[in-house]
């Protein structure tokens, strides 16, 4: 160990101090933010300072959340030194940091997630430049997300075939997409696509597939015949030509004159047809590999008569692949009873099921893309 008079000691000391000062200067140039990453106003960015910010369901909170599970005055966030500190204000449903309910005050680390009711807010500590870039990226994502949502058809509230749906991507963009449209006066097609993976790449691929299906843009293919549709899609979308992505698909065509539903699924779990008076759901699935996984595959189709008053539920695996409050992973059969539970007045079936799934999930979080389509044959 050098003596304090040694030049080496002074040089070492100066290096540490300079690095320490650079780190302090870097921190001083940064601003703390809370960014809403789940819930209403996703993407909204609120800067934090030494003045505490109250969060709750009502004013005079500085951050007002339109959330029935938030208390009027739910918690307070303030910057103390370099930390964001959250204080629960005796909220009814609790304040959570990274999944753990807090008691009193706790530090919300940089990158940590604060959960209040159905809202999640991430703590970010960024320079002004970084914050501007993040906001620009967020705007791009919002536009892309709005475009994908614009491809989804409007629910059908009248007529012999009625539809409802719920669409909640896990990130801003996901690989799920679905649709339906009349093929002719007699036949009605419905379909759900789930591209492997998540995020922008999967969303782009899903949009490609959806636009082909929406416009029947399959050369030489009769869109009324599900097996032929799957075969042509498989030829068009081989995974080695599409970024290594495959997709699962459920495709059905209802013939309103014959009251028959023809369908084919590729790598997809069953859709379920619930008979009138909410009888036992019939699984509708044909054993085929996913689209794009292997070339030159023959696809199998099937059909089933449909009684008037039956309801078809078509959904992605994100609906049932949740971690329950007990920590166990749920399975498809765990959610099937929900399909025959009574309807709730004033809430559509897909939303009823979405809320039920959220209630079962740990931290109220549905981890994967949630797509649920209900078709009622009146």
């Amino acid at each position, binding site marked *: 160990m050098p003596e304090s008079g040694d030049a080496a000691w002074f040089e070492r000391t100066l290096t540490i101090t300079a690095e320490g000062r650079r780190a302090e200067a870097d921190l001083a140039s940064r601003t703390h933010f809370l960014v809403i990453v789940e819930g209403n106003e996703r993407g909204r960015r609120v800067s934090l300072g030494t003045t505490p910010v109250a969060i709750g369901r009502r004013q005079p909170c500085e951050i007002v959340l339109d959330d029935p599970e938030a208390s009027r005055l739910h918690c307070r966030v303030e910057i103390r030194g370099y930390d964001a500190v959250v204080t629960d204000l005796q909220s009814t449903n609790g304040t959570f940091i990274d999944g753990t309910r807090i008691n009193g005050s706790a530090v919300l680390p940089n990158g940590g997630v604060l959960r209040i009711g159905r809202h999640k807010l991430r703590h970010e500590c960024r320079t002004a430049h970084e914050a501007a870039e993040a906001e620009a990226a967020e705007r791009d994502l919002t536009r892309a997300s709005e475009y994908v949502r614009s491809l989804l058809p409007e629910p059908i509230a009248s007529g012999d075939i009625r539809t409802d749906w719920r669409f909640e991507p896990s990130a801003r963009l996901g690989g799920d997409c679905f649709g339906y449209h009349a093929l002719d006066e007699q036949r009605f097609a419905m379909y759900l696509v789930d591209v492997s*993976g998540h995020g922008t790449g999967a969303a782009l691929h899903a949009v490609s597939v959806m636009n082909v299906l929406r416009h029947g843009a399959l050369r030489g293919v009769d869109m009324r015949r599900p097996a032929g549709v799957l075969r042509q899609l498989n030829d068009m979308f081989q*995974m080695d030509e599409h970024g*290594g992505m495959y997709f*699962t698909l459920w495709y059905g065509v209802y013939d309103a004159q014959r009251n028959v539903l023809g369908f084919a699924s590729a790598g997809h779990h069953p859709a379920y047809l619930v008979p009138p008076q909410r009888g036992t759901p019939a699984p509708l699935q044909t054993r*085929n590999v*996913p689209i794009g996984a292997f070339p030159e595959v023959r696809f199998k189709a099937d059909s089933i008569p449909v009684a008037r008053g039956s309801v078809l539920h078509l959904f992605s*695996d994100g609906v049932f692949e949740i971690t329950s409050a007990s920590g166990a992973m749920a399975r498809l059969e765990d959610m099937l009873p929900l399909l025959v539970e009574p309807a709730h007045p004033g809430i559509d079936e897909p939303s009823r099921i979405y809320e039920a799934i959220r209630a079962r999930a740990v931290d109220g979080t549905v981890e994967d893309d949630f797509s649920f389509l209900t078709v009622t044959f009146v």
Partner: protein
Amino acid sequence: MEVLVTNVSDRVTKVGLAGRLDTAGVDRVEAKFLAACAAGGSHALVDLSAVTFIASMGIRMLISASRAMALRKTKLVLFGPQPLVSDVLNHTALSDVIPIVADESSAIALVEV
């Protein structure tokens, strides 16, 4: 997610996977997994008994291995999936293309035919 590669014989490699085969898990092991499956003309037995969950990226990894090995005319066999993993493999009909058996001895029997 972990991967462990062992030689069963000079023509058969066993590749053990453990943990969650989700996006993060696949990112960690995919390169090593695919290299092990495609190595030197050997057949590959994939032990799924310690895989607790498989997502679409995990399925994609298995499909990629299968396609690569088909080109080399070697066999890929999966064995020992847990019920949750078995559900997903069943829905994707993967067993129509990649054999899936209950245990290691059954898997060895398939490749030594």
